[in-house]
């Protein structure tokens, strides 16, 4: 049985990754799971300089999901390179650094600083709904997405994954724009913009008013978008959104994902990433699937 997958020339031992922002830089959850078991660890978004993020409350629970408006708090690329990359290097897993910024220049600065770092891939977050400064346009307009993708692709030393926003009319168009801009892969979905109101206080549950919805509630939307994106492009698609079990992960793979990421459900089950790895293995055994790659996009009518 072979669970290996290849994404843009990088071989992952299995298709299970962590979703950016839900797993820190691996340190916190390394108390619960063996990072060596994971295909890749995707870090929290990192910018060129430290970001303080949004005021609290930053999180709120919803039916089968949660809203977050962290606002990309992060220590900046310098601290990140000094502390988080060396930590992750101790493990036999791939390192994918999630990059955020407010301007194209911000992104390019981070990408350049990562050029010589021992990281395997870059995931470019152009889809965070919680940052006011406008970076979200990169993720919601196909021409902006094409533009930033090509600029990053030109600078980046590692394969580039563009992380797509679900808050768009046509996800296939966005995936095609990323591919046209030279992206080596796309990942999706980021959170869906949502809101919660406390009817007793008559205030927003999040100080930021809106937040990004994640968790099992959004899985059907995520599976649909992964399917549509993978039908639209030739580059690999990394699927995520509400994965709570190996079954969910397999659903994404059948829909067309070459790899999957576990996000908010880490908070519910801190052992989940490893359980998804074993669960996929068990499924492959049960149905005598030789190579995981045989499952990618294997849904039939």
């Amino acid at each position, binding site marked *: 049985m072979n669970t290996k997958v290849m994404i843009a020339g990088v071989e992952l031992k299995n298709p299970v990754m962590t979703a950016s*922002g*839900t*797993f*820190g830089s691996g340190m*916190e*959850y390394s*108390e*619960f799971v063996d990072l060596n078991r994971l295909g890749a660890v995707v870090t*929290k978004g990192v910018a060129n300089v*430290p*970001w*303080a*993020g949004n005021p*609290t*409350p*930053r*999180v*709120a*629970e919803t*039916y*089968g*999901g*949660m809203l*977050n408006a*962290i606002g990309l*708090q*992060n*220590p*900046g690329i310098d*601290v990140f390179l000094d502390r988080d990359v060396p930590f992750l290097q101790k493990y036999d897993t791939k390192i994918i650094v999630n990059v955020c910024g407010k301007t194209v220049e911000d992104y390019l600065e981070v990408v350049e600083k990562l050029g010589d770092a021992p990281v395997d891939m870059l995931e470019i977050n152009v889809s965070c709904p919680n940052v006011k400064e406008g970076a979200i346009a990169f993720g919601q307009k196909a021409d902006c997405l094409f533009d930033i993708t090509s600029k990053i692709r030109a600078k980046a030393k590692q394969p580039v994954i563009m992380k797509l926003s679900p808050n768009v009319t046509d996800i296939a168009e966005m995936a095609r724009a990323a591919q046209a801009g030279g992206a080596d892969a796309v990942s999706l979905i980021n959170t869906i913009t949502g809101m919660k109101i406390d009817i007793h206080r008559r205030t927003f549950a999040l100080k930021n008013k809106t937040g990004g919805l994640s*968790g*099992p509630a959004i899985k059907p939307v995520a599976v649909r978008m992964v399917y549509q994106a993978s039908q639209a492009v030739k580059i690999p698609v990394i699927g995520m959104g509400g994965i709570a079990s190996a079954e969910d992960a397999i659903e994404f793979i059948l829909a067309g994902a070459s790899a999957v990421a576990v996000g*908010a*459900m*880490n*908070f*519910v*089950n*801190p*052992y989940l990433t490893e359980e998804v790895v074993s669960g996929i293995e068990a499924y492959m055994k049960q149905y005598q699937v030789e190579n995981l790659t045989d499952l990618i996009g294997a849904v039939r009518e």
Partner: protein
Amino acid sequence: MSRKAKVTGRVLSQRAMAENIFDLKIRTDLADEAGAGQFVGVYPKDKSTLLPRPISICEVNREEKSLRLVYRIAGKGTKEFSSYQEGDEVEILGVLGNGYDLTRAAGKRTVLLGGGIGIPPMLETARELHEQGEKVTVILGYRDAQLFLKDEFEAYADVLVATEDGSVGTKGNVLDAMREHQVEAEVIMACGPMPMLRAIKAYAEEKNCDAYISLEERMACGVGACLGCVCKTTKKDAHSHVNNARICTDGPVFDAREVEI
């Protein structure tokens, strides 16, 4: 810091203590490493709710391997917890956070202040300090005459009471009681609602005494990964270097001087 795990505990007992306040004892190995001021995340079984509910540790019993949680019904999760009965299973994430550093109390005039549903964690604090031979004063602030846990504090400390409605002890809050009884403190350890903590921070700055306060914030992961639960700090935080510490891992207990609340 103690090693963290998500475990299945078993309810040893549960009873109502006061209006909407419950006393829940759970058998779990997490008791081995739990200490005063730390908390656990309790997962409701209702699948529409996903996140663990942070609840402070009110008492640790290492022999029995049990944790005691005292909580107020605040919403869906705590409402569900209040229905648990002896023998029921309960999923808990713990032990979380950094509690009170009890060495700070050594040989000092220490006052513990607990307000409302901030009272429970002070019980384990009082018990551990008592075990270490410290003599402390405890001041408890209640809404009314439902003085839950008060008797139990008396085994470990001198206890003063303040009530909002004036029905017992000082009318007002814990600081009012402190002033009324002219209690002097070199070290304060406190848990309670934000206005009380703000007042304590101001008081400690004025009197130039140490104050360690336990903060609350909405949490998602409980383990420092999501950055949901931050509070503003006066110094650069170790994690993000942006004066935003994580309450779940850097706290919940902070030196009052080091946080902006």
